C-alpha cells in the first residue's frame, strides 16, 4: 500500500482532492475520542451527520469506525435549533451546526466533531477550548467570570472577543453566531527566551550544576 493511500484514508479526503504527485495541505479533522458509548445506532449517526456536512466532507470516512463520543448534548431537528458557524484559524468555514438553548460551545463542538479540545472537561482549569466569537455575539454574552478570565490570560492567540467554549451557553439571540478556532503557533510558546532563567544580579548562570532530585534528603 502506498503512503498516499493511507494519507487519503486517515485524512478521509475525497479521492478527487488527491491527485498523484500533487502537493497539498491535508487538514485532518479529528474524530472525537470514544470516551462514552453513543446510544445512536451507526446508521442514525451517519444520517444525522451527513445532513449537516458539506458534500465533500473529509469526516465521512470516520463513520466506518465506532460511533464517537459526543458532547452530551442532543441535536435539535434540522431547522429548529440555534445555528453556530465554526471556522478554522484562517477563517474558513468548517461547519454550520444546530444546537439547543443552554448547550455550550465545547459540547457542541464535540457533538459535531470539531477539533476543539477540552483537556479539563469544562472545569475552567485550562484554556484548550478557547474560541474567538464574532463581536456582535460576544457583546450579547454576560461578562466572563474571574476564573474564566484567569484561563484566558494563558490562551494562545487571545483576542478581544475570546471566550472559553465551555463557558459559552447558547441563547436564542445568539442564533447565527460564529466561533473561530484560534491561530495558535508554536512560536507562541517557544520564544520565551531560554536565557530568562540564567539572569540574576551578580550571578552568571544557574544552569551549570548537576543536581539529582534524589540525592537530597531533608535532615
Amino acid at each position, binding site marked *: *500500500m*502506498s*503512503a*498516499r*493511500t*493511507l494519507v487519503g*484514508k486517515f485524512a478521509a479526503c475525497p479521492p478527487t482532492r488527491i491527485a498523484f504527485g500533487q*502537493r*497539498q*495541505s*491535508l*487538514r*485532518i479533522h*479529528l*474524530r472525537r*475520542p*470514544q*470516551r462514552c458509548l453513543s446510544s445512536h445506532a451507526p446508521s442514525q449517526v451517519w444520517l444525522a451527520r451527513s445532513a449537516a456536512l458539506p458534500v465533500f466532507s473529509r469526516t465521512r470516512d470516520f463513520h466506518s*469506525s465506532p460511533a464517537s463520543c459526543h458532547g452530551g448534548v442532543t441535536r435539535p431537528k434540522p431547522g429548529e435549533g440555534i445555528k453556530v458557524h465554526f471556522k478554522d*484559524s484562517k477563517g474558513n468555514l468548517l461547519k454550520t451546526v444546530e444546537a439547543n438553548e443552554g448547550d455550550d460551545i465545547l459540547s457542541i463542538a464535540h457533538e459535531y466533531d470539531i477539533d476543539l*479540545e477540552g*483537556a*479539563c*472537561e469544562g*472545569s*475552567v*482549569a*485550562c484554556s*484548550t477550548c478557547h474560541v474567538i466569537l464574532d463581536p456582535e455575539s460576544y457583546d450579547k454574552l454576560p461578562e466572563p467570570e474571574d476564573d474564566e*478570565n*484567569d484561563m*484566558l*490570560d*494563558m490562551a494562545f492567540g*487571545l483576542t478581544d472577543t475570546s471566550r472559553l467554549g465551555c463557558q459559552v451557553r447558547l441563547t436564542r439571540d445568539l442564533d447565527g453566531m460564529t466561533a473561530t478556532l484560534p491561530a*495558535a*503557533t*508554536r512560536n507562541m*510558546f517557544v520564544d520565551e527566551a*531560554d536565557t530568562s*532563567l540564567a*539572569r*540574576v*544580579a*551578580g*550571578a*552568571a548562570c*544557574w*544552569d*551549570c*550544576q*548537576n*543536581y*539529582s*532530585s*534524589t540525592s*537530597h*534528603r*531533608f*535532615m
Partner: protein
Amino acid sequence: MAPIKLAVVGAGPSSFYVASRLLSLLPRSGPHASSLKIHLYDRLWAPYGLVRYGVAPDHPEVKNCTHKFDEAATDPRLRFFGNVNIGTTSPFSYALPLSLEALMPYYTHILYSTGCTVPILHPALPPSRYCIPALSMVHWYTQHPSKPSPPPLDRTSHVTLIGQGNVSLDVARMLLTPPDHLAKYDVPMPVLDILRRSAVQHVSIVGRRGPLQAAFTTKELREMMNLPDSSMVPLDPALLAQVQGASLTRQQSRTLQLLQKGSKNKPGTTAKTWSLDFFRSPTGLTTPVSPSDKARLTLAHTTLDPSSRAVPTGESSTLDTDLVITSLGHRSELSAPWYDPALGHLRTVSGRVVNADGRVVRNVYASGWAAMGARGVLASTMMDAYAVVDTILRDHFPGEDVQTTAASGPESAADKAAEADALEVLPKEVDLDAIPPEVEAGLKEGRVTDFEDWRRVDAEEIRRGEELGKERERMDWEEAHNFLTKTRT
C-alpha cells in the same frame, strides 16, 4: 504503509498527547491500523508523569486530562512499560536499566518526552537542611518514588520561597491551606499528618524582579488571595505606583489589579501570613549555630535595567527564616542524549532531534518539556505534542503537507533540507510486536508494570480513597508491587 513502531521515552502528558493524537489520526478502523505501534516507557512504575507527580493536589480538574490518556490506552496498539529506565542512570534501584542502544533495534521511531526533571539551583543557596528545592516538596506531597524525607514543618514557622512562579505558589498554598480543606483531595495521609502538625506562620515569596515580571499566573495568585485563614502582607504602594502607566499585557494588568486589591482576609486579621518580596536576590544563607535559631538569608536589593534584567542596587537586607525553598525552574538531565547545556533541554527543530553538528537524527523526535524547556501549562504541552505528531507524519508521508493543528505551522523548506541530510540510527523494518528481552523478562517478574497493572492500582487507590472520604489514597511502589503480586493470578 511502512510501519511506525514508536518507542516513547517517558509516559507523561506530552507522551500521552502524542500517542493519543497518532492513534486517532491513524484510526483502528483504518486499513493500515496494524502498521502503527506505540510503546511508552517510563522509569516510574505509574504513568502520567507530572500529572500524577506534579499537579497540585487541590487542582484535581487539571488531572481530568488522564481520561483522554486512559482512552488512548484502550487501543491495543498502545503499550505501557513502567519501571524501565532508558539510558540515563536510574535513580531507583528497582527500575529496570536499559540502554538506548538496546532499545533502538526494536523501533523505527523514537520520541523523547522525558521532561525537565532537574531543579535549577541558586548558586548562592546550595541544598542543605535549611535549603531544599521546591521539587523535593512537590515529590513529598505527591509521594513520588524519589521519596524525599518530609520537611520538618513542626519546627518551621517561617518559610522563604525563592522564585515567583506557579510551582512556588503551589508550595505556598499547600503550606498555608488548612489541612482539613486538603483532606478530600489526593493528598497522601502521611503528608496530611505532617501538614496538621505544621508550625508555619509566614511564607515569604521572593523574586529578583517586579510584579510585572513575576511568572505566576492570575489563577494561582487569586487562590493565594483567597486562602481561608491567611492574609497577604500589603505591598508598598510605591512599588505598584511605579509600574502604573507602563504598557501592560492583559495578564499583567489583571495581576496588578489583584495585587492592589490584596488578600480577601485583611492584613492583621489572621495568624498566618504571606508576602511577595519583589526586587530581592539572595546572596547567601547563614546557618544557625544552635538548631533552635533561625537561618539568616541575605538578600541583595535589585532594580531593573532597561532590558528588564535584575541588577543590584548595592543595598541589601537580611531575612531570618527556618526553611528556604528554591523554585527557579527545571531542566532536562545532563546525561540525556542530545541534551544541549546551553538550552537546558534537548536540541530539536520542529520536534526533530538534532545532534551537536546540527544534523537531524532521522525518526528521532522530542516533545514537551524535553524539547522546549520547563515552561507553559498543559495546554501548551498538548499543542506542542500535536505539532510534533504533524512533524512525524510529514516525515513519514513525504510529499503530503500534513497540518492537523494550527500550532505546527506550514512545512518550511528548512525542514525538508534538514530531513534530507539526516543521520540514520534506527532500522526501517522491525518485528512490530517484539520488545527487548529484558523488558519481556521484567514483565514476567512483575518488576516492569504494564497498563493493566496501572488500571488495577488506580482502581485500588480510588477505592482506598473512598473509604477515607477522599479522591484517592496513593500507593508507593512497595505497596503497589505487593498489591499486584497478591492479586495477580
